[in-house]
């Protein structure tokens, strides 16, 4: 653990979700890297990862300083000792972090902090407004065959996320529609609950032409492949709307899974000083505000919604789900010895079974 911040090393490499670390290349207005580089002399390089598994793999492989890990990745990296404890005293703006996040269990183990909260938000249901006369109210439009208001079936026109964590979305759906299964937490499933979720997903396989894996490819598919509904991130919704594609998003009645991301520092980081400078930067600059607009997420620093340091406004934060914190089931890694019941199906089974489901098993 660091005790003081020294001279910057001149560089910083970050593993991040697409759209998380922008230097104005896609849209000049959204740039929270150039200023940081000018101020600290730490030149930032970004490796985009598409899934939590990929993030874990990249961090295991090494060579990176920071990672914007979601809850389903963070604990794995802590357990694998790929990330180091954070000295929050070296991050002056720590106090401005949303209290609900300060000690969140996905980055705090035995009272030790392993990261600085970055951004959080829901996995929304994105839909095409021409296919849906009214906003859908249930995730059933991506799980069950129905005729949409444009008169055609949804079969072949919906997508699902190409990561095993999508099983939790199915569990979340079942939690609402089949309470008799007794699911309390979509990430903690016993054998029966898990089997039911897989069954639901097998049915979904009939509807899905192609699973989405990469935010930009999903954007393409909504433009060119006639896709009309899918679980998605606000990021894609924003970009598609900017391109005048008729899409909108909603959090349906079942609620939604979501992510709460934490910036974590690699155990072997060669640029820890720059990394601590980034920690402070991510909390104190325009980043929280602009990124929440750009990605459609909620800042970890509530003040960023209102204090005018960036583009975000209170309405914007509300729209992105600021008030829904408790309704969102944040991604976390499924483990065998779970809290809500005796024994749960662990994540590695999720991985192989989801490959099977997509493969038609």
């Amino acid at each position, binding site marked *: 653990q660091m005790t003081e911040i020294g001279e910057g090393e001149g560089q910083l490499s970050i593993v991040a979700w697409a759209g998380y670390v922008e230097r104005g290349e896609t849209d000049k207005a959204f740039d929270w890297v150039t200023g940081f580089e000018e101020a600290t002399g730490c030149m930032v390089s970004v490796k985009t990862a598409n899934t939590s598994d990929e993030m874990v*793999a990249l961090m295991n492989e090494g060579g990176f300083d920071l990672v914007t890990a979601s809850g389903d990745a963070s604990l794995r990296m802590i357990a694998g000792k790929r990330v180091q404890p954070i000295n929050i005293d070296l991050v002056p703006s720590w106090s401005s972090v949303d209290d609900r996040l300060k000690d969140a269990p996905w980055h705090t183990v035995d009272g030790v902090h392993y990261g600085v909260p970055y951004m959080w938000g829901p996995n929304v249901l994105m839909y095409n407004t021409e296919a849906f006369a009214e906003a859908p109210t249930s995730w059933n439009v991506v799980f069950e065959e129905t005729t949409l208001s444009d008169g055609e079936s949804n079969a072949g026109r919906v997508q699902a996320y190409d990561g095993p964590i999508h099983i939790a979305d199915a569990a979340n759906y079942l939690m609402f529609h089949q309470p008799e299964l007794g699911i309390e937490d979509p990430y903690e499933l016993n054998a029966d609950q898990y089997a039911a979720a897989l069954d639901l997903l097998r049915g979904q396989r009939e509807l899905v*032409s192609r699973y989405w894996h990469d935010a930009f490819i999903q954007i393409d598919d909504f433009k060119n*492949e006639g896709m009309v509904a899918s679980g998605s991130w606000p990021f894609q919704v924003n970009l598609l709307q900017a391109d005048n594609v008729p899409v909108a998003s909603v959090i349906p009645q079942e609620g939604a899974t979501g992510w709460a991301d934490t910036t974590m520092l690699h155990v072997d980081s060669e640029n820890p000083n720059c990394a601590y400078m980034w920690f402070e930067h991510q909390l104190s600059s325009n980043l929280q505000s602009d990124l929440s607009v750009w990605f459609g997420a909620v800042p970890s620093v509530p003040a960023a919604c209102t204090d005018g340091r960036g583009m975000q406004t209170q309405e914007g934060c509300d729209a992105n789900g600021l008030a829904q914190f408790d309704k969102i089931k944040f991604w976390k890694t499924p483990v065998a010895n779970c809290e809500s019941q005796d024994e749960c199906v662990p*994540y590695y089974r999720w*991985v192989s079974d989801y490959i099977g489901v997509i493969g038609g098993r």
Partner: protein
Amino acid sequence: MIAARSESIGTRLSDMLWRRPAVLLVLLLLPPVLWLGIIYLGSLFALLLQSFFSIDHFTGLINYRFTLSTYAELFTPANFDIILRTVTMAACCTLASAVIAFPIAYYAARYARGKWRAVFYLGIMMPLWSSYLVKIYAWKLILAKEGILTWALEGLRLNWLLEAYLSLPVVGGNSLSVSTTGTFIVFVYVWMPFMILPIQAALERVPGSMLEASGDLGARPAQTFRHVLFPLALPGIVAGSIFTFSLTLGDYIIPQIIGTSRLFIGQAVYQHQGIAGNIPLAAAFAVVPIVIMGLYLWGAKRMGAFDAL
């Protein structure tokens, strides 16, 4: 002067090599054998080694203890599906490539003369060497639901044909670009040029008198093709199929961009390695094409296909 020259270092070294030809052979072979033997085979061996390790499923860290459990995982239904799917696809692509490549190779070998020879040469080489990624992307534009093929078929009022095809099970889908057929087309497109040259080379070695002899003995052109030309071109086809088969077996970019999201071996290797960080399983998956190609090369060698390479 001449005496001095004859005792130059070159000459003395040369004398030594003449007296010990084995030394020359060793000097020639050493660099390539070291390179391929240490770097390449060494890496393959390292890979093989990894496949006998396993991964801690929670942390994603490798457990360096010998186990066969990773191989056992290959035989779970989901993974075995991947292998079967890939091998089937590779076989179909190889077959289709041979069918499409044959007439081109045959024409180039037997009939193209003078400037047509150059045209054929460039016509074959240009696609072979132009960017692989760009070709895939071109196909995405063609096959997309809102793509050029749809546009063209609309113009021809033949949409119904495509619709009817897409409604077929297994090969169909919402659009060609998300169907197995799409993956197949692009695979064939990208690897087929690798089939043309070996077939052409094999056909160029068939003397014209062989075909005349067949006609002379009463065979109509179709019979000559079946009984003489095809069997003689076969080593070339097998040589070409080494490429089409192996390249399909290992590709992970095409099925990721065009297809049904069902994994192929290449993707499994790529994802388990790069995305899931499960290097042992990725290694075990990589051993599958090694074994398949090993058998394939062994068979090809027996057919004399190496001479046509």
